[in-house]
């Protein structure tokens, strides 16, 4: 089995929700569709309060190249546009919608289009119009990723079905429930990526998904990978499957590769085959704090409080102390459950005291586990010491800016050093320092 060097083995805890087939989250009356659901500039609202909106209609337009369209997940009226709790940035402008519950709120699938007749530009236009962004969590606009500059020759596209974050099972459910659609999506991608090889990386704890793709014997080649975190990180996934290492400050396209999440691929298929904009996504609702963990197809903008209520509410057995967007390794902690689902919301996790423990730091014993665990070959323990001394120059020399912020070091540290938490803060300081003190090397 292929893999990358370094990494850690957290308990995957996927069995809480991996058996639950994707079900539909019932439509609720109030939705908050954020204008900041992607990396880049927030979209510009095309509606104002009191306007009627139609299911699937464009309600906010991409502002510039690195931005994305946003469509209405329901038919109803715009209540207001206001600053609303946002699961990543605290607060952000959002369009508050009131659903017209008397109307059909399910997307009506037309007969699939014969996309084999579309040329690359037509396909790209559909992807851009549908407002598709990376659904793994990074939310980078997909169309930008799929349009590398002509001098970069892309020979491999990797579909990320790794889902290395513990608890999350949304991609897994997609892979086993929509195998054919994902393969069709791969064929669509192949049309616009000049017949590149297309792989899908799947970890050993999802062997049934791997077998399923293997039995289809399609252009979407499954690769079984050893179970290890952070294999779903772009650099590590390319390393694991293609054996190519992306040099510092370079991008996947510099080694001829593009990485795309399995959920994103599914959205691409639906956009091209059915003209369906990105108005819903599969969300794993899990953690010991959730009464009935589920994989739900949620409309973008649905409030978490409604979703948690639909999953039986918070468990009475133990208190939920942390509510997360995404997985426990890189997810964002929420102070409230009245945040909406955004495009990058792969999971809603309610972690209890037993799961999310806080432990005081102890002295570093130089055990080197962080060094062996670091997928970027950094020395987190040395970084930690330099950060304690505020030694910016040493941090620069230790290549702190190579850090992909996977958190393996903080996870594995027996002294419970909050290494990655400090690195995030110091990376910014070091970049500012380097701008002033280091020439263009």
């Amino acid at each position, binding site marked *: 089995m292929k893999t990358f060097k370094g990494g*850690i083995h*957290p308990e995957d805890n996927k069995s809480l929700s991996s058996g639950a087939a994707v079900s539909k989250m019932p439509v609720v009356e109030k939705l908050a569709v954020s204008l900041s659901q992607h990396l880049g500039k927030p979209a510009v609202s095309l509606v104002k309060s009191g306007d009627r909106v139609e299911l699937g209609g464009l309600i906010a337009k991409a502002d510039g190249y690195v931005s994305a369209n946003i469509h209405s997940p329901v038919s109803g009226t715009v209540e207001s546009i206001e600053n609303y709790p946002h699961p990543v940035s605290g607060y952000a402008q959002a369009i508050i919608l009131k659903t017209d519950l008397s109307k059909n709120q399910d997307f009506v699938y037309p007969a699939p289009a014969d996309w084999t007749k579309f040329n690359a530009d037509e396909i790209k236009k559909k992807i851009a119009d549908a407002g598709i962004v990376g659904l793994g969590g990074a939310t980078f606009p997909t169309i930008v990723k799929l349009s590398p500059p002509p001098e970069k020759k892309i020979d491999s596209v990797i579909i990320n079905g790794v889902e290395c974050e*513990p608890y999350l099972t949304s991609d897994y459910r997609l892979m086993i429930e929509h195998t054919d659609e994902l393969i069709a999506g791969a064929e669509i991608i192949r049309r616009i990526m000049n017949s590149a090889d297309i792989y899908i990386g799947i970890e050993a704890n999802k062997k049934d998904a791997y077998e399923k793709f293997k039995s289809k014997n399609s252009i979407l080649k499954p690769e079984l990978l050893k179970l290890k975190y952070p294999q779903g990180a772009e*650099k590590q996934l390319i390393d694991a499957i293609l054996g190519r*290492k*992306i*040099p*510092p400050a*370079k991008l996947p396209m510099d080694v001829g590769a593009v990485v795309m999440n399995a959920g994103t691929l599914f959205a691409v298929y639906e956009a091209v085959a059915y003209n369906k904009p990105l108005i819903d996504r599969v969300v794993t609702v899990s953690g010991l704090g959730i009464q009935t963990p589920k994989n739900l197809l949620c409309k973008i903008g649905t409030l978490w409080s409604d979703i948690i209520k639909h999953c039986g509410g918070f468990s009475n057995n133990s208190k*939920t*102390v*942390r*509510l*997360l967007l995404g997985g*426990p*390794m*890189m*997810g*964002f*902690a*929420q*102070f*409230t*459950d*009245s945040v909406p689902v955004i495009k990058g919301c792969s999971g809603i996790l309610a*972690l209890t005291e037993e*799961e*999310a*423990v*806080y*432990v005081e730091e*102890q*002295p*570093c*014993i*130089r*055990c*080197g*586990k962080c*060094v*062996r665990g*670091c997928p*970027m*070959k*950094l*020395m987190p*323990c*040395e970084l930690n010491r330099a950060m304690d001394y505020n030694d910016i120059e040493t941090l620069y020399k230790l290549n702190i800016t*190579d850090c992909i912020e996977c*958190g393996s070091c*903080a*996870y*594995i*540290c*027996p*002294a*419970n050093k909050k290494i*990655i*938490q400090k690195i*995030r803060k110091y990376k910014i300081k070091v970049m500012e320092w380097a701008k002033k003190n280091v020439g263009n090397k």
Partner: protein
Amino acid sequence: MSETNKIEMFEVSASPHIIKTETVRTIMRDVIIALIPAIAVSFAVFRWPALYVIALTTLFCVLIEFVFSKLILKKNTVSDLSCIVTGILLAMNLPSNVPWWIMLAGSFFAIVIGKLVFGGIGQNPFNPALVGRVVLLVSWPALMTTWPAPDVPKNFSDLFKNPDAVTAATPLGVLKAGGTKALDENRPDAEKTFASLKAGYEKSDSDKNEYSISKKAPLYLNLFLGNCGGSLGEISALALIIGGIYLFYKGHITFHIPASYLTTVIVISGIFWIADSAKYADPLFHILSGGVMLGALFMATDMTTTPIAASGMIIFGIGCGLITMTIRLFGSYPEGASFSILIMNALTPLIDRYAKPKRYGV
């Protein structure tokens, strides 16, 4: 914000939100577990005095840590269990017949001078147990080099009797004093040392001058199992290897240092043995005897005092092997494992400075 009044509040913190349930304390606990086979062998071979030395030394270390961590660090650091590990490892380096004040002095130097004065766990440049041992060795050499003869019980009830107060040299001591001939000729010292191998030996009497591994099989078996004179913990290679495998399985040690250390010992002793097998002992003898195995698996793998990067660990292990063999072959001490590890401890910051993982993607 109509819902403000019914907002449920949760803890907010930066990711990762889960951590491995492993702490310094659990690592130390695992090291203690890994030492159990060696403790058991020391009891089987030296009986109650062995357990007495281990228990008392550990107790001294805990008490000294308790008192001096309060004095020096202003906090109680007993609970991380590292003082127990130091205590057991120090006892492993003592003969079973040392007086109590030797244990007390060794514990003091190990805990206070070896660790606490530098700022406690994680800050010490030298392996604390070895600091204690070497201070004792150079201060009271006679007491530290008089080893009781091994006395493996013939039956179960023997196990609870005290052993004879007979002393014997260590295999390396015999080698240093009389060369391979001494080992070959089964002189009285060696006879005590390898109590039960006589029968196996006499069969090969016809060809005494030739030093061959096959004829020494009983000797090696005794060295491997621990039926020989020496410090409590160093006698049985088997027990130490079992403990080492446990630590490896738990992820607390890597193969780099033990492998490079033992390989260097094998290569150097092999070169000399091939050049003159009548004068020098063979590689197998060298890795099975003395403190090399204890050193390679438990001392040279101490996290705090050894390099962090893989390449640095290999340099460290090679250095230990070179120094150990230099002392064994040319020094006046029969054994050099402790000195070699301490010297390499001193070089660790320097090694760490140059041996770093290669930058990703360059």
